[in-house]
């Protein structure tokens, strides 16, 4: 690799920064900031590929920092590293900060190294990818809805009509898999429970089999651990709490459509989604069997 990958660590505890810098200085160009405001200043003038931030800091929260970092340098991969399990922070970091991973303190050295390596690979591919021209064609997208709730349907249907997208509906996991195998799907809007089945394994499988598909999770459940897995292992695009809030949902759908259209215009290798393998044995099995069911899809992607 010609250019070294630059990582910016932000944490109000200097000892965390020193420890991380010492761990990664040999592989990457490591920058550290204990004040998130200075970190933002730095992003304006310096090229940084990966930013890893703490959540609770006196000047601003990590989620806030990452949301602003996204405005300043949208290509930067953003990772939250926090000792607090705080659902609101995780939701904000995902929805506004578009985070790549949510890591917890104390971190596992190997896992952290692996995550940064994955991020660095994506960053390296991005560096060498040709820039997309400003005009992105407004292509019609295929939207798959995996949720029986009327309010969700109403919002998604209206969005599809307004944007000229095609709306497909599935009432169960097997129907969804059949549709995914027969059609190219761009956006998936799904609850975590559909017809009594857990959809998380499908979301995780799709992140691996179909990294260009964007999933928006609409759910009444609020469990930080579950969300953390959905971020890391399913690379979901948005997490929207039920009862749905119209404005937030619309914004999420529009952002997803825009992202999908950008990706359509780009060559396949620049996609910035890369999911972690599920950590639990049971999850891995389920995802494995679903990946088998999604086999035809994979074949088509490879072809």
């Amino acid at each position, binding site marked *: 690799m010609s250019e070294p990958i630059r990582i910016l660590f932000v944490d109000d505890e200097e000892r965390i920064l020193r420890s991380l810098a*010492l761990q990664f200085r040999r592989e990457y160009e490591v920058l550290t900031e204990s004040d998130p405001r200075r970190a933002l200043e730095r992003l304006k003038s310096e090229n940084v590929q990966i930013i890893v931030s703490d959540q609770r800091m006196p*000047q601003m929260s990590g989620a806030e920092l990452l949301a602003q970092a996204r405005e300043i340098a949208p290509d930067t991969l953003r990772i939250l590293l926090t000792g607090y399990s705080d659902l609101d922070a995780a939701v904000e970091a995902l929805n506004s900060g578009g985070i790549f991973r949510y890591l917890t303190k104390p971190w596992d050295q190997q896992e952290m190294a692996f995550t940064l390596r994955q991020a660095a690979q994506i960053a390296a591919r991005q560096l060498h990818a040709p820039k997309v021209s400003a005009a992105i064609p407004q292509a019609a997208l295929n939207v798959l809805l995996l949720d029986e709730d009327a309010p969700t349907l109403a919002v998604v249907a209206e969005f599809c009509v307004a944007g000229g997208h095609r709306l497909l509906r599935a009432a169960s996991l097997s129907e969804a898999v059949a549709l995914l195998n027969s059609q190219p799907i761009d956006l998936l809007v799904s609850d975590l429970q559909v017809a009594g089945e857990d959809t998380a394994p499908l979301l995780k499988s799709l992140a691996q089999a179909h990294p260009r598909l964007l999933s928006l999770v609409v759910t009444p459940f609020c469990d930080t651990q579950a969300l953390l897995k959905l971020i890391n292992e399913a690379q979901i695009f948005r997490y929207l709490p039920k009862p749905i809030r119209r404005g937030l949902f619309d914004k999420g759908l529009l952002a997803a459509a825009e992202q999908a259209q950008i990706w359509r215009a780009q060559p396949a290798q620049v996609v910035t989604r890369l999911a972690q393998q599920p950590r639990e044995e049971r999850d891995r099995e389920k995802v494995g069997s679903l990946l088998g069911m999604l086999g035809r899809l994979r074949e088509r992607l490879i072809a």
Partner: protein
Amino acid sequence: MTTASALTRLLKPVTPLAADMSIADVADRLLTPEHKAFLSLPIVDNAGRPLGLVSRSTLQDIFMQRFGRDLRGRHAVQEVMNPAPLVVSLETSLEDAAKQITGQLQYPITEDFILVDDQGLYRGLGTVLDLLKAMEARIAQRNLVLRKALVELKESQTQLVQSEKMASLGQMVAGVAHELNTPLGYVKNNVQLLRELSAPLFELAEAQAVLGDCLNDPTCDEARLAMALDTAAEARVKAAPELLVDDFTQLFSDTLYGLEQIAELVVGLKDFARLDRAMSEEVDLNECIRSALVIARNGIKDKAETILQLGELPRIPCAPSQINQVLLNLLNNAAQAIDGFGQILVKTWADDSAVFVSVQDSGRGMPAEVLARIFDPFFTTKPVGQGTGLGLSISYKIIQDHGGQIRAASEPGRGTRFLIRLPRPQALPLQRSA
């Protein structure tokens, strides 16, 4: 149902008298054993409607006059009866009956009361004494129910106070557990780094030992020596001990610092709970504030800067774990009242009679109608599930139990200030003379 039967139970089915019965016959009847318990006898008409009561005392008054019985004994009882006696419907409740009777009865009590059915027909007599007994039984029963309710209320209050305590304890423990993750994070990483970084040093030591052996060994040939020298030089380059010194120093000092942080948090938790110590020891409130701040730090640090202006305080007797609970409650409330980033000012001072703690925040503040209710049990402005509404009412109770006062002043948009006053024990004569 029960009230209707209450009067029925008082009913004595006394045979009524006819209006034309002679006074002498009535007197004879009053003397019979079955009528001994009555002060009066009822007189009814042919249809069974009560006409009046003739009382024992009226007859006695007549008979006490000279020739009274002879002169008037043959007269109809109607002439001497009370034509407006107390008539109570059996439908009446015990309480209403008591009200009606005590309202109309005159001293001395010379008559009973007539009980009638819903048609107004005579059914029997009731005595005032029986009514009193029934009322007393009723009141005793009521008292029993009230006492039971009071006991239950006290129990559920204790439970609520306990659950509020557990909730704040749980919050605190979760907060501290999270707080531990930061030092744990770098301590763990540092130890792993130290292990990785020290591995080449061991290799270097090993290579240098081999070289040393070679140099000390007269039989060592040049080729072996050259190889040992090479290996040692290589290991030296790889380990770069001179570059490691600074890293090691830093890693060790950070790690020790982190372990101290962890120890401080654990000691803070222990100090905070202070379950092992009893009430009424000599306590420095400044210490309580410091240990509450260690615990509250994680909830505060991203909301506010804490400024301490702690004056010198005399030790006072109190229950430190309770005072800590109050302080933690005030600090957490202060942090939660702040939008964005603000300030929490904690001040302490003392005068001759008391010790004062003031906790002031630069938060939202409260309108007067909210301020007036903040110490009320169950009053909360937080969303359902986020506050029991008991924190401040328990704080109020704790300070009150200590013989002190807690007051709040607030201005919307400017912030809120809580002031605690805890009395000093009365100065001993010894101290005064000194």
